[in-house]
């Protein structure tokens, strides 16, 4: 029996592929499995091709997996458009619509012979049992229940709840379609059984959500009371969550006229004393540059989420990439340090978002959360999170003596000055983007500028000691290493496990804090390292370069970088690690041979 299965399905817009994926994930969660679901669409808003991947496992999983175990094609034309997202291997069972008329031996998959190929008259069964082809996706769920043992009960329970309002007959029609699919599977057993082991945690409550919703919920949990933003794929759902919920907590949200007004309002709200946030994707981040600089010099707390998609410019709006790293660290003119954090999964988006607010508030600074399309849009099943373990930090306000001749930008030992806000008696000051003396009054003095730049830079020093914002997995003394962040870290976690299973002595560093670069953490990590890979979804090897800018990388540490959209597969990373290993061995051989 299997512990882990990756399903991939594709069809055209009306086929309900994504809703089938949702049902499957929910059923799996109800049955105690861990799951991850990702979607991918064509550029058409409606009626175009759509696909999803659902991975289900008995153990926690942190990425959507590599090759498919099960591929479902409602038609081949659409399926083939997702070659990168739905890779079929020799271990894949391929299920497809018999009405395509294509023979099982002639399916249009190039260069691979799947484990088994099964044509199923899906549309016909739907029509026959439910009276409409729209039930095709329910037939597919029935097939999955039959062959892989997931959702036999839970799927229909979910569907029933969803359709309750639409009347008994529709529910019954779907039940018939589901049963027909299941029956078909029972009657045509797979050559090799692929049923999933029952989960041990069956019955426990599971959460299901995606990275964007998690981010917004975490922000509200952290005390965020204002969101100003402008819609942009794939970040819009963060604003949507705020428009649904923040009012309940006494907060407000503004869908502004553009990105500049969105962040501008957030800057204003922060000045007014409230925790505030904006969210966007690449093009919006570019537009926000000037305001980010303002928040830095005015030392106003602010959290900016950038859900990365393919760039530059409009680029690939629906595909994931990590190429906003440079922009996150370096955009906005002048000398600025702006902390950049990155979650690696839906689950840790909760913690990282809270951390972002804590850092913003403590250091009085804008903080960027670099999420990416993959994390933002994918759904994960989660075990309940104990929210009481999270500490919330609020900005340090002036009290008593501070308010006698209050100096907003007072030089202090830790370079952080208590901050007042409108409404606070005794705390009035002038905030500005102009260089200023301690009181806030404008200056054009070069020496004050130097001192204030020092203040605004040095205040971040303690951040670099935050080892808890880094994670080392694998053998800490391993000679072979990987570094990866964001959604790619999830792929590398999987690659690590695979490589270890294959006997490689390897470790993985996952930075949640990308900038400022914590030199100490990396230097310590590199102590044992002779060969390594910095793995990222950028074309210019931005992470590699950012690290190199601050750290003397061991010579054997190389970049494994690739433009977005094309997913990294754990397998190819393991192959690259094997390559490193053989290089390592060759170099050690060399040492034992006489030198020429």
């Amino acid at each position, binding site marked *: 029996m299997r512990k882990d299965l990756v399903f991939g399905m594709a069809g055209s817009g009306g086929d309900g592929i994504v809703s089938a994926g949702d049902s499957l994930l*929910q059923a799996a969660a109800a049955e105690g499995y861990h799951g991850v679901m990702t979607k991918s669409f064509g550029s058409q808003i409606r009626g175009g091709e759509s696909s999803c991947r659902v991975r289900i496992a008995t153990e926690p999983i942190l990425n959507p997996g590599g090759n498919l175990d099960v591929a479902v094609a409602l038609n081949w034309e659409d399926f083939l458009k997702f070659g990168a997202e739905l890779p079929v291997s020799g271990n894949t069972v391929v299920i497809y619509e018999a009405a395509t008329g294509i023979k099982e031996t002639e399916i249009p998959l190039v260069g691979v012979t799947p484990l088994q190929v099964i044509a199923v008259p899906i549309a016909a069964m739907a029509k026959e049992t439910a009276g409409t082809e729209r039930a095709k996706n329910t037939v597919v769920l029935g097939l999955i229940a039959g062959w892989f043992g997931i959702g036999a009960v839970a799927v229909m329970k979910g569907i029933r709840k969803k359709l309750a309002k639409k009347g008994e007959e529709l529910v019954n029609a779907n039940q018939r379609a589901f049963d027909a699919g299941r029956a078909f599977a029972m009657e045509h057993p797979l050559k090799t059984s692929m049923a999933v082991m029952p989960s041990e945690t069956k019955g426990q*409550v599971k959460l299901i959500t995606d990275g964007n919703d998690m981010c917004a919920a975490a922000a509200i949990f952290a005390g965020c009371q204002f969101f100003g933003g402008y819609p942009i794929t794939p970040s819009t759902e963060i604003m949507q969550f705020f428009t649904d919920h923040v009012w309940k*907590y006494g907060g407000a949200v503004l869908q502004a006229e553009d990105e500049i007004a969105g962040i501008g309002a957030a800057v204003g709200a*922060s000045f*007014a004393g409230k925790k*505030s946030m904006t969210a966007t994707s690449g093009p919006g981040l570019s537009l926000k540059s000037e305001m980010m600089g303002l928040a830095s010099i005015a030392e106003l707390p602010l959290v900016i989420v950038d859900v990365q998609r393919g760039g530059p410019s409009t680029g690939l709006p629906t595909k994931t990439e990590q190429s906003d790293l440079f922009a996150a660290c370096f955009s906005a003119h002048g000398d600025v340090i702006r902390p950049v954090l990155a979650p690696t999964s839906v689950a840790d988006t909760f913690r990282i978002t809270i951390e972002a607010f804590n850092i913003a508030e403590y250091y009085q600074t804008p903080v960027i959360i670099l999420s990416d399309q993959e994390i933002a849009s994918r759904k994960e099943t989660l075990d309940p999170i104990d929210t009481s373990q999270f500490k919330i930090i609020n900005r340090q306000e002036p009290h008593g003596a501070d308010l006698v001749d209050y100096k907003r930008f007072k030089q202090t030992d830790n370079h952080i000055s208590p901050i007042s*806000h*409108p*409404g606070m008696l005794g705390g009035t000051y002038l905030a500005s983007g102009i260089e200023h003396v301690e009181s806030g*009054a404008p200056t054009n003095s070069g020496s004050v500028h130097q001192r204030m730049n020092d203040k605004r830079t040095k205040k971040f020093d303690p951040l670099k000691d935050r080892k808890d914002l880094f994670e080392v997995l694998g053998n800490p003394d391993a000679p072979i290493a990987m570094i990866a962040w964001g959604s790619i870290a999830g792929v590398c976690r999987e690659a690590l496990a695979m490589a270890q299973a294959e006997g490689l002595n390897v470790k993985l560093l996952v930075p949640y804090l990308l900038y400022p670069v914590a030199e100490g953490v990396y230097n310590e990590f590199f102590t044992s390292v002779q060969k390594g890979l910095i793995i990222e979804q950028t074309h210019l090897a931005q992470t590699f370069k950012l690290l190199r800018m601050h750290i003397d990388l061991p010579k054997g540490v190389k970049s494994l970088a690739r433009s977005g959209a094309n997913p990294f597969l754990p397998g190819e990373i393991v192959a690259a690690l094997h390559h490193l290993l053989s290089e390592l061995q060759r170099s050690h051989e060399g040492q034992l041979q006489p030198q020429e």
Partner: protein
Amino acid sequence: MSATCEFQAKDYKSDLKPIWCPGCGDFSVVQGIYRALAAIGRPPHEIAFVSGIGCSSRIPGYTTAYGFNSVHGRSLPIAQGIKLANPDLLVLAAGGDGDGFSIGGGHIAHLIRRNVDITYIVMDNQIYGLTKGQLSPTSQKGRVTCTSRFGSLEEPVNPLLYVLAYGAGFVAQASPTDLAGMAAVIEEAIRYPGFAFVNIQSPCVTYGEEAQQIRGLKAISESLVSLGHNPADRLAAMDLAQHYGEKMHLGVFYRNPEPAPTYDALVRERQALLSKDALPKENILDLFIKK
């Protein structure tokens, strides 16, 4: 108005010495603001005063309010964030003609249609003062400046007409030629419950044209009251506003006799209405449990 004022104009004046050119119209404007604020009587620390960048945008620093001398063209988005975050504050925004109608011109319509309760004061001097004399969006066609040696090729914007078209509830114009009138109009603007716009013809003595100096302005000024204009008549206001640039009408062009609800009030209402639906924050993740 109560007989005894708790605050006097000087209470709103900060220690920072203005660095405007001697004779700059903005000196009068800040005086007008001090007086208006004194008449209103809100303590300085309950006032947030936001500006962009320009000579005129230095103005918050010369008051004792919480000031925010932000970036060019963005006073309104920031002011709006402040008001939504804390509707109890008295929020002022101010800046120049370039700041407001050129780089910031995209924001005004949206604040107005939201009807955020902010008073926006533009010191309109038909020039870019701080950057030393380039064309501004209110400069007359044909005007010669350092960026238009052969004369401007563009019609100016019409701030008064624009904001009326946007549906602003309060629109007025003032000038240092009548300081008392200016203070009165600013006061009225602040008291108006909703977005209020005051255009102030504030001469730039260094780069302004002769016709835009006090003497020139006086020559073309006309009080709306003396014209018998009814400020409840929006169409008449739009008609009068057409003369922006030739005539300087002073006073209130338009005051909505039935002020629409403000955005900040609607937000409060919604907060009150929905607060009962709030899960305790520590349980917020329960939203993600599929039942």
